[in-house]
């Protein structure tokens, strides 16, 4: 199946901004993070289809996964 992965902040460096990635049907957010060579402690927030999710969440075909580093502001 295919998912659309969006990266933000420093996670884009050496990678990409948005990319469609082919995965197995049981793939989790964590699998995507590992596949992209991102250390888990670099990840601050993950969302599937604009909803916050845990790293263990399973993906469905056509999902949009957003991966953010630790960020702040206000």
């Amino acid at each position, binding site marked *: 199946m295919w998912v659309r992965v*969006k990266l933000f902040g420093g996670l884009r460096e050496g990678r990409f901004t948005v990319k469609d990635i082919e995965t197995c049907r049981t793939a989790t957010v964590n699998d995507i993070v590992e596949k992209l060579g991102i250390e888990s402690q670099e990840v*601050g927030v993950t969302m599937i289809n604009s909803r*916050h999710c845990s790293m263990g969440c399973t993906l469905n075909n056509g999902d949009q996964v957003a991966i953010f580093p630790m960020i702040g502001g206000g």
Partner: protein
Amino acid sequence: MSDRIFRVNMTDLSTRTEDIPDRWAGLGGRGLTSHVVAEEVPPVCHPLGPDNRLVFAPGLLSGTAAANSGRLSCGAKSPLTGTIKESNAGGMAAQMLARLGCRALIIEGKPEGDTWYCLHFSREGIEIREETELAGKGNFAVVETVAERLGKHLGVITIGQAGEMLLLAANISVKDPEGKLRSHGRGGLGAVMGSKRLKFIAIDASGCSVDLADPDCFREASRAFAKALVENPISQALGKYGTNILVNIVNEAGALPTRNFQSGQFEDHEKISGETMHDMIRERGGRVKHNCHPGCVIQCSQVFNDRKGKYLTSGFEYESIWAMGADCCVADLDLIAEADHVMDDIGIDTIETSVAFGVAMEAGGLEFGDGKGMLRILKEDVAKGTPLGRIIGCGAGHTGRAFGVTRVPVVKNQAIPAYDPRSVKGIGITYATSTMGADHTIGYTIATNLLNSGGHVDPLSKEGQVELSRNLQIATAAVDSTGMCIFVAFAGLDDEKCLPALVDMINARFGTALTLDDVMGLGRRILMTERDFNLKAGFTSAHDRLPEFFSKEPLPPHNAIWDFTGEEIDSFWDF
């Protein structure tokens, strides 16, 4: 130098100093400004009349070597909201006032006639002088002229044309280490300063320093505190991308108010994002990191240059960029930066004014996305005080009433900033219950709702939001009293060594034995004092509500609505 209260009476043009009364002994920053206003300002007075008082107070740790301790609180009854108000800013003034032994500077009364005045505050005391040359001038001219007259090392607190014209969105600006500006942005405090005919305050703290009760303990605690800040990953991200890194995450969460709060996502979000801004700054030879006051180790500010590499603006914040960008649909960072600079010079709140533009665009006075039109109105109408400029310059609520708009995002007449409360419900509780009208900084639930700092509370669920907002509002009131930048809260939420070190520094500064519970108790006391003022001014729980449209208009993409009952909101005050 022992700390004192300094008073300036603008009615008879006199000054005096007083010992700090026992009841104010443990107070600084917002804790002190709010207590002075609550005790000395009649709650029903006209905010621009002689009975209002403008209070400046550095924080308890300002003037010391404590990292990030250079925030200055400014308080009064707000002409925009009619409530009590505290707004804090960086710049150099807090450190300098603290070193002059000034725990609070209280400006009282109002002179007869149309003469403008300025204050010169040094170790010899405060001198009131007439000011003619700078009347009608912008903030940058004030800073440059004071540097020429008195020296570059002086601190400056100033109002621009907006403050002189008593516009309700007028801010008070503070000179930063490089001669640029930081702002007491919200609540129209610049109009209060203007009503007292005070154009600027020049501060010379040469040769002065703050006494420490226990310098060794202070040094140790200060080192632990700075370490907690520097090592925190959110602090590090703030230094790299600034606050504007939030555009993309708030957009992704469907909470980026767009087109005057009609949608939660902006199709051109990447054009105004922190990542894009970071690349533009590097390409144009600007500075990614910049501190708004000496001693800041987070350095979330930046210097943004134009296409030719010439300085355009600094302190270019997420909320300003959101307001002009997504809310007004202007997808051009250069135009936004230019408007930011113009508003800094005029001395007007970028959030209030830009949200007012969004409302005016909905009314049809300007097309959504017309950044050049916005810039033209700022320069030709707001700066010059034409009738249109005065309407926009008095804020979003005023603009909505003048043009018959019903979708007007304000609480207690103050514009709602950059997070839609339908999609981030915790911040809606903060907007509704804030003692100062809609304000994100006063209880920044975004940290936990969206950024996973201090845990996670689902932004779209009602569960846990009242408690989250309450805890953050109490902690923020306490932090706002220390002189600390609120961004120390990220380390405070996630590093258990951070807040104890902060309390240790306060104890080493004053020779006290406060605990963290004592400091949080101060936060509760401040909130109750502020609320009590508002109740006496005529506010009721009916004012602690969001505008009707939030309950009626679902916000894409989640199609969320604001669904808290009045009773649920009012439970905020059960503490």
